[in-house]
């Protein structure tokens, strides 16, 4: 699986960090999304997909 985030779209709502804390973080200075694992292991796929689905700004894409 490959995860891509678009920091320019992120509005810092934090949904991704809540559902997939091992894949996403928020930058300390401004709360903007930071991708921790571009290729998360299989056990994190469901979480990463849910984050993409929940992100209100459509800033997360996953494939695979």
């Amino acid at each position: 699986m490959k995860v891509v985030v678009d920091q320019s779209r992120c509005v810092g709502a934090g949904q991704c960090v809540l559902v997939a804390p091992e894949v996403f973080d928020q930058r300390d200075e401004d709360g903007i999304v930071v991708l921790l694992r571009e290729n998360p292991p299989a056990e994190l796929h469901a979480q990463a997909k849910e984050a993409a689905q929940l992100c209100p700004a459509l800033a997360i894409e996953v494939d695979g």
Partner: protein
Amino acid sequence: MPEARPVEHFPMSRGRCPFDPPPELDRKLRDEPVSRVRIWDGSEPWLFTRYEDVRALLTDPRVSADPDRAGYPSQTPGVKARRSRFKSFIGMDEPEHSAQRRLLTGDFMVKKIQAMRPRIQQIVDELLDEMLAGPKPADLVQAFALPVPSLVICELLGVPYDDRDFFHRCSKVLVSREATAEESLAAAEELQGYLGRLVKKKLDDPADDVFSRLATGPVATGAMTVEEAAAMGQLLLVAGHETTANMIALGTVALLENPDQLAAVRDGDDALLANAVEELLRYLTIVHSGRRRVALEDLEIGGQTVRKGEGLVAATDVANRDETQFPEPDKLDVTRKARHHVAFGYGVHQCLGQPLARVELQVVYRTLYRRIPTLRLAAPVEELKFKHDMVVYGVHELPVTW
């Protein structure tokens, strides 16, 4: 040809169940998911009720949240009168919206809010100590539901809690559907003046709070005016306590009416508690007058062609009862997976304060029913005064005893 239905007035009144959206909205969701409705000023925006359509509408870059645009369907005469005077990012489109919102995202990020959990717990415990030591029955709204989020948002923003009577009075007018344009403008002016003075004070004497950071950052560098900071402050202060206060009180009514669900919340683990908060947000969707937008060009949503300049209303409350997303949607079930509800809205305007609301509600629901296992209503549910007259739903008073 199906018979043309008359254009309904929106928002409609609720039916017998105080937790369910109006029956007419439910009917629309089933038979007429997109329709024209008539609002208070006589205009006829499109109303979208389906979950998928609501999400599509709220993420479409061809729609605007700017209340100054012709065709924008204002919630109340007050909202219309106030619009450009006190503008904050909630009424801006990209790129201005993100530029302003990003001044705050650091203060509302999940990590920072999680770190406030012990302090929120302390506030909750102290208020419950006081309530338990006081007379019975008590009004849960005044004794607990309103003070908790008010104290928390005051500390976060740097607003003196001693001034709460003043800003509670202003914000009540701002969210009222019955306030006149004049009353609403006057309340906004008063609050604006107060917050403007506060921002200036923080400029000279900053502390560790949001207003100080705005004052010494964007205001000091000239990136933002004092007026803009004060307008942003109005949004944060009002949204920061009105909504959560209503979720605490109304959520408690819903749980007391569903004792098995209350027991599950009280006895469940942290994961269940977090889930229960999402389900209560979905089930109650207290922002019950829809999210308002206007089309910037001709476009199609949910099979409906919408013309440039037409008003759009996303009915998030009924979208959260869409059975394609939430089976048996009218049932309160704290074990269901409800995270994808749209109670906080959706799209770039989705609630900035949602991490704070979640932590507050988790601490509150857990602590309240554990510390007062015998909590019960001191008046029949039919006699409660529900907030049909406000843009945010809830109860005006909640007599409880134990």
